[in-house]
C-alpha cells in the first residue's frame, strides 16, 4: 500500500515506496526519545502513585489510597489554596499591567526601543537568580528595602519572616518577572489589529476611552485569553523562585503545590504519595487548560 488517496485540500504530499515510510522515519527519533524519557516514566510514576513507599522502596499496593488521602490532608488542601490564590492574583496583575504597558507602547516614541529591550531582561534571567535578586531586596538585615528604610531613619523592614507579607512578596516577584511576557504578547496582538475600525471610530469622533472599550478590548480578547491561559498554566508549576526565596515558609504561607510535592518526595521520602500528588496536579492543570481552550473557541467565535 503505497499510494495515498488524493485529498481535496492539498495539505499532504503524495508519494510512493520509500516516501511512504519517510514520515515515520522522520518522526522516529523524536518519538523514541519522548517515549523513553517522558511517556514511560510518566506511566511509571502513575504506577508508583498506587504504592506505599518506605525509604525509597515500594512496600505494598494501596490502589487509589494515596489519592483519597490527599483530599483529606490539610497540608495538601492548604497548599492547593495557596497555589490557586497565588496564580489568580499574580496573573491578574500581570494581565492588567501588561495591557497598560502595551497600550503605552502602541505608538512609537522616544525611548520606546530602549524600554522594549530592557523589558526583556526580567523574563530571561534564570528564575533562581530572580529569587536571589528579590531575597536581596526583602532581607530584613541585608536587603534593599531595609537599607532605604534605615537611610530615611526608619526600622528594618520585615517581610520574609511573616506569613502575609511573604506571600505578597512572592506575588510581587512573579509580577516583576513575567509582566514583560504578557506585555510582549499583548503588544504583538495590538500591532496586528486592523486599522480601519479605529480610523472609522476617529472619524465618528469617538474619544480614547470609548475606542478602547468598544473596539480595542473586544478585538484583543483572543490574544488576552491566550496570554492569560499560557501564563496561568506556567504559574501553576512555579518552583524555582519559591524554593530559593522562602522554601515554602514561613510556616506554610508560600507552600506552593510543587514545593509541597518536592518536600513530600525527597524530604519525607513518601515517594508514592508525592507521585499521586503530581498526577493530581497534572490533571488539575490539564482540566484548566481544556476549559480554557473551550472558552477561547467561544471568544474567538464571537
Amino acid at each position: 500500500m503505497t499510494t495515498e488517496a488524493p485529498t481535496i485540500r492539498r495539505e499532504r504530499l503524495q508519494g510512493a515506496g520509500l516516501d511512504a515510510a519517510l514520515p515515520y522515519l522522520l518522526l522516529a527519533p523524536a518519538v523514541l526519545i519522548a517515549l523513553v524519557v517522558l511517556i514511560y516514566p510518566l506511566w511509571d510514576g502513575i504506577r508508583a502513585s498506587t504504592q506505599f513507599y518506605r525509604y525509597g522502596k515500594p512496600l505494598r499496593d494501596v490502589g487509589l489510597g494515596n489519592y483519597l488521602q490527599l483530599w483529606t490532608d490539610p497540608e495538601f488542601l492548604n497548599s492547593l489554596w495557596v497555589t490557586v490564590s497565588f496564580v489568580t492574583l499574580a496573573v491578574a496583575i500581570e494581565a492588567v499591567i501588561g495591557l497598560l504597558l502595551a497600550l503605552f507602547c502602541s505608538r512609537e516614541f522616544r525611548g520606546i526601543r530602549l524600554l522594549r529591550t530592557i523589558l526583556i531582561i526580567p523574563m530571561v534571567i534564570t528564575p533562581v537568580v530572580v529569587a536571589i535578586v528579590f531575597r536581596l531586596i526583602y532581607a530584613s538585615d541585608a536587603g534593599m528595602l531595609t537599607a532605604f528604610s534605615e537611610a530615611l531613619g526608619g526600622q528594618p523592614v520585615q517581610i520574609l519572616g511573616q506569613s502575609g507579607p511573604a506571600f505578597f512578596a512572592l506575588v510581587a516577584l512573579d509580577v516583576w518577572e513575567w509582566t514583560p511576557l504578557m506585555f510582549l504578547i499583548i503588544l504583538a496582538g495590538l500591532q496586528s489589529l486592523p486599522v480601519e475600525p479605529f480610523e472609522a471610530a476617529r472619524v465618528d469622533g469617538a474619544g480614547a476611552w470609548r475606542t478602547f472599550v468598544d473596539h480595542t478590548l473586544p478585538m484583543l480578547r483572543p490574544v488576552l485569553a491566550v496570554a492569560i491561559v499560557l501564563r496561568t498554566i506556567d504559574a501553576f508549576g512555579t518552583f524555582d523562585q519559591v524554593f530559593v526565596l522562602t522554601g515554602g515558609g514561613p510556616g506554610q504561607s508560600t507552600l506552593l503545590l510543587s514545593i509541597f510535592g518536592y518536600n513530600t518526595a525527597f524530604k519525607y521520602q513518601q515517594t508514592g504519595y508525592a507521585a499521586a500528588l503530581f498526577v493530581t496536579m497534572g490533571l488539575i492543570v490539564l482540566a484548566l487548560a481544556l476549559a480554557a481552550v473551550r472558552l477561547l473557541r467561544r471568544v474567538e467565535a464571537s
Partner: protein
Amino acid sequence: MTDKNPFQRAMNRRTVLQGSAGLAVAAALGGTTTVPARAADAKKVIIGAFADGGLTPFKQKIIPLAKTQGFDITFLEDEYGVTLEKWFADAQNKAGQYDLYLLDDPWVPQFGAADVLEDLGAGGIDGTNSDWVGPLIDMGYWPPRQGPRVKGFETATPTLVTVPFVGDLQTLTYRNDVFTDGAPATWDDVITKGKAGVAAGKIKYPVVFRGVTGNPIVTSWYPVFLSFGGEFFDDKWNVTFNNAKGKAAADFFVGTMKANAPPGVVEFDSDQEGAAILGGDAGAIIQYSGNAIKSDDPAQTKVPGKLDFGVVPKQEKAIAQLGIFIAGVPKSAPNKQNSIDFLKWYTSADTQAKLAEAGSIPVTRSGFAVKDPGNRLIPVALKQLDAGALPRPRMPDWAKIEELLGNALNKALQAGSGGGDALDAAATQVTAYLKQAGYYG
C-alpha cells in the same frame, strides 16, 4: 545553516558531539585545577557537608591539620535544604560520590534503616571507649542501644554506623544584669526575675523563642517539654506527648511564655530571635551554640559583656535538645579505608583537643578537658550534657512528625492558649501517620 539535508544534519550533530567532548575535557581539566596539588601518596577523602557556622573551626583549623597528616580532603558544601535528599540518593544509588557525610543527627535513623552505611565498629572504631561523651556516642548506633526500636529492627544488634563529629546542643543565654545570681535555675525564675528586669528598664521581654511552624517552634518547645518531664513516645511508639506533663509544658509555652515574649514571636525564626537577644530586648533565650556564640562578637551584639551562658532552666528536670554533626561512611564510598582512617585520627584525643581549642564543641571528654577552649561556651556545654541532653526521637519519620506537631503548636501559639488541645490534635494525626507507616504491628 540554511543548506541542510538530514545527512548534513547528522554531520553537524557529530561536530557538536566532538565539540562537546572537547568541552568535557576542558571541564575535567577545569575541575582538577581547582583541587590543590597534592603528594602522590596522600589519602583522598571526599567529605559532604551542609553550610553551617558550626563547621567553620573544622574547616579553618582541622582540615589544614589533616593535610599535614597525609589526608587529601575534598570538602563539598551544599545548602542544608538539599543535602539530606542528595546524600540519601547517593547512598541508595551506590553512586559513590562521597566518602563521608557530615549528617544532621536526626537523619541517622533514615540512613541506618536503609542499611547504606558502613559498620564503623567493625572498621576499627571503638564505640565503648569511655572517652566518648555518653549521650553523643549513643546517637551513632542503629538500632539505638536504648529506647524503642522501629519495626523490623527489634532484634537487630546495635551497630555503630556513625560517629559524633562536632557536638552541639541547646544552652541558655541570659542577661547577667537581669539574672544577677547567675543563670536562672527554674522557669519561674526566668519569668519573675525577667519581669523585674523589664520593670527596671533593662530589657523589654523576659524571653524570646521561635514560633514559626515546623522545625523552629518544635525546637524551641523541646527543652520546655523535656524540663516539664514530658516524653514523646513509650517503648511501643504510642504517643505520650499529650499526657498531663506534656500538656502542662504546651500550656506554659503558648500562654505564659508568649505573654512574656515579643509580640511577633509567633512568626519568629532564628533571625528575629537573634536580633532580640543581641539587640538587648530579651532577657533569656535557649539556642544552639552557633547562634549563642554571636553574643561574644562585639560587631553582632548591642549589649556586649552582658550576656552569659548557662544550663537550661528546670521545672522537674533541666534537659536541653541535643543536635550534633555526626559522620557516616556510605558503603559505596570510593575511598572507604581512607575515610575510616580519617575518622580514627579525627576522634583521637589529640585532634579533639585541637578542635576544642579552635572553638568547636568536641565529642570526647578529653576534648572538653582541654585547658584553653576556643570559646567560653564549651565548659557550659559539658555542664549541660551532664545535666541532661536528649536528641530527637530515633525514628526515620521524625521530620514528618515534627511538621505535624509544629503546625498544631503554632496554631495554639497564635491563639495564645489551647496548648493541651493542640497536642491532642497532633497526637491523633501522628498516630494515624505512624499507623500507616507500619509502626504498630
